[in-house]
């Protein structure tokens, strides 16, 4: 097998209008505007709704605890639940997710336990979970770097004939980074089974999308790489789930990568230390609140008689349980072992590092013996 195909990809621009299946008011988009797609099964929509509601409650609780000082920082994904959960719900267990710091609810949705997930934001270790166990890479902070990891991983799977796809989340601001270009291009050339989900939440901290690109939309990037591109209503979980599922299926069956731009909005500040009033209007936020991903799906499911009060109560209870479990996990003191600082730097032990470890040990022993305290 060769990674490189000589055939050139046709140049097809994505549709300018964001693809949607359920509109902001909660109504199904008329069939003739669905571009041949059906809505996902009602059970899928109910599951998306369930996960989004719990994720938002969980996210809200993390933000609250961060304000109380239990975590050192937390970048909330409030408002982006459809893009985050819709994407993860479309993945198979054997697929791998390459998330960013914004994507904690996606990582949560992959099944990573709360205490492990929030290890980095609480500050007890950079990445608290086992990536191999959850098929979820550490959350990347250096922007767009993880796109290349996702492409390399997917290419390795392709070389080994394993039907595995990878998903790389990336934000609108990060598309300006060189690694975004290199990630898209390597994926195109090697036909890597990678789906890039660009969550265009309109702001890179304070800088609006208009200052990142003059292009009509980010999905247009795809044509330059010979990759299919999609422009999707990122607050419509049904649309996100549908397009990501199709892209993942195509990737797993040898059809190569896809770039999907999900149009969404970051309702919260960048992190708890940000002040959005300095760069965006309250009206802007209010307008996006009207497009809320959970509200619209709830309206749709209610109109379909697919949810009743019993289910709402059940989900509300699950949400409170998730929030309580998270609160308990964050209120428990983390087990910190300063000696562990030296354990994972190298596989091969280094005598000089052992010297530094022993020096710290001696320092700590002296303090605990009541000696000099700094």
């Amino acid at each position: 097998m060769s990674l490189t195909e000589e055939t050139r990809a046709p140049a097809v621009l994505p549709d300018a209008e964001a693809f949607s299946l359920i509109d902001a008011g909660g109504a199904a988009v008329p069939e003739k505007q669905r571009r041949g797609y059906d809505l996902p099964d009602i059970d899928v929509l109910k599951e998306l709704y369930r996960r989004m509601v719990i994720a938002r409650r969980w996210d809200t609780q993390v933000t609250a605890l961060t304000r109380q000082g239990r975590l050192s920082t937390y970048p909330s994904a409030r408002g982006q639940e459809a893009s985050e959960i819709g994407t993860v719900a479309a993945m198979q267990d054997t697929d791998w997710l390459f998330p960013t710091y914004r994507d904690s609810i996606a990582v949560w949705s992959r099944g990573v336990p709360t205490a492990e997930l929030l290890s980095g934001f609480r500050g007890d270790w950079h990445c608290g979970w086992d990536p191999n166990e959850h098929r979820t890479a550490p959350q990347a902070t250096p922007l767009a770097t993880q796109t290349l990891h996702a492409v390399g991983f997917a290419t390795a799977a392709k070389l080994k004939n394993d039907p595995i796809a990878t998903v790389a989340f990336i934000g609108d601001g990060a598309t300006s980074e060189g690694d975004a270009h290199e990630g898209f291009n390597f994926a195109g050339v090697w036909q890597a089974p990678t789906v890039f989900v660009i969550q265009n939440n309109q702001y890179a901290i304070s800088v609006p999308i208009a200052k990142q690109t003059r292009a009509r939309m980010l999905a247009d990037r795809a044509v330059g790489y010979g990759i299919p591109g999609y422009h999707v209503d990122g607050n419509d979980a049904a649309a996100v789930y549908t397009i990501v599922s199709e892209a993942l299926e195509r990737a797993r069956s040898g059809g190569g990568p896809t770039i999907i731009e999900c149009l969404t909005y970051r309702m919260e500040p960048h992190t708890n230390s940000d002040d959005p009033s300095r760069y965006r209007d309250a009206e802007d936020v209010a307008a996006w609140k009207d497009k809320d991903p959970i509200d619209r799906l709830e309206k749709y499911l209610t109109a379909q008689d697919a949810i009743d009060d019993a289910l709402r109560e059940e989900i509300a209870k699950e949400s409170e349980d998730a929030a309580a479990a998270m609160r308990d996990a964050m209120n428990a003191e983390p087990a910190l072992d300063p000696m562990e600082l030296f354990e994972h730097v190298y596989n091969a032990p280094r005598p000089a590092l052992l010297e530094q470890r022993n020096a710290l040990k001696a320092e700590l022993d002296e303090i605990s013996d009541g000696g000099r305290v700094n």
Partner: protein
Amino acid sequence: MAKTTETAADPGVTQPAKAAKPLTMAAALNTAMRDALTEDSNVVIFGEDVGPLGGVFRITDGLTRDFGEDRVWDSPLAESGIIGTAIGMAMYGLRPIVEMQFDAFSYPAFEQIVSHVAKMRNRTRGRVSLPIVIRIPTSGGIGGVEHHSDSSEAYWTHTPGLTVVTPSNPADAYSMLREAIASDDPVIFLEPKSHYWMKEGTPQSGPALPMNKAAVVREGTDVTLLSYGPTVAVALKTAKLAEDEDLSVEVIDLRSLSPFDDETVGASVRKTSRAAVIHEAAQFGGYGAEVAARVTEREFYHLAAPILRITGADIPFPAPLLEKHYLPTPERILNALSTWEWEV
């Protein structure tokens, strides 16, 4: 999923099967990769021009032909992309060997190397190792134009999580590259490009010195020259010239820049009580500063004189016609040694 912890080679047995005739360093490196590709199906090689061309220095000559394009292939021309995708491949279980075409061309990959390659094992609490070998043709001496002659070792040795090694002869090139490929830690493998065609020090049968050990390549009693990569040959020439001055020079080839072999260096310095470190890179904040500080801290009471650094000047690497004035020479080293007060 094919998650493997299988290693490519037993580091204890690291000489090529057929070393009957002298090998150049280029051929030794090629043989090392060829043997690793043969022994471990998870070893892959990619980078700029490493496929049918065999690399601009021909180090991967014939490997695509013999192992196919899904083992050895040309990547797009983007160094960050090469390292970034190697990270993903290593996470999957492959053992990628990648080539940065020239030393200064590795800088676009700086973030991927420093923020990810070096840190992945630590940030995942030891759960994800990255067995990647990053081959970098390094240093000057070939009349290269701008950006083709840098010595970048201090950037890498300053980064915890990286292993940085550099061979100075064909035998080490073979055994150290085999060991680097077999290592579960990421290795920056600096190849002195001025030595690619040297045949001295061809691989011999028998076990090789582990790659993390320094080698005493010439014994002496009066002074220890600490050299590595391209400056080992310069140090050996210096030692020869010094004989005329009745100066007995011990030459150490550090081989491993990180980790540093305190034991071998310390033993030598305790014997000679004088040391100088020689490298091509600029002096200020260079690798020699670490060596001097480290050896001084540990061996101060055995030292008869301050440790000297004979290095490139603190200027950007010169244009080809001027590089001879920049590179450390035996004469410059001997002059520096003569500045010490010898009658103590």
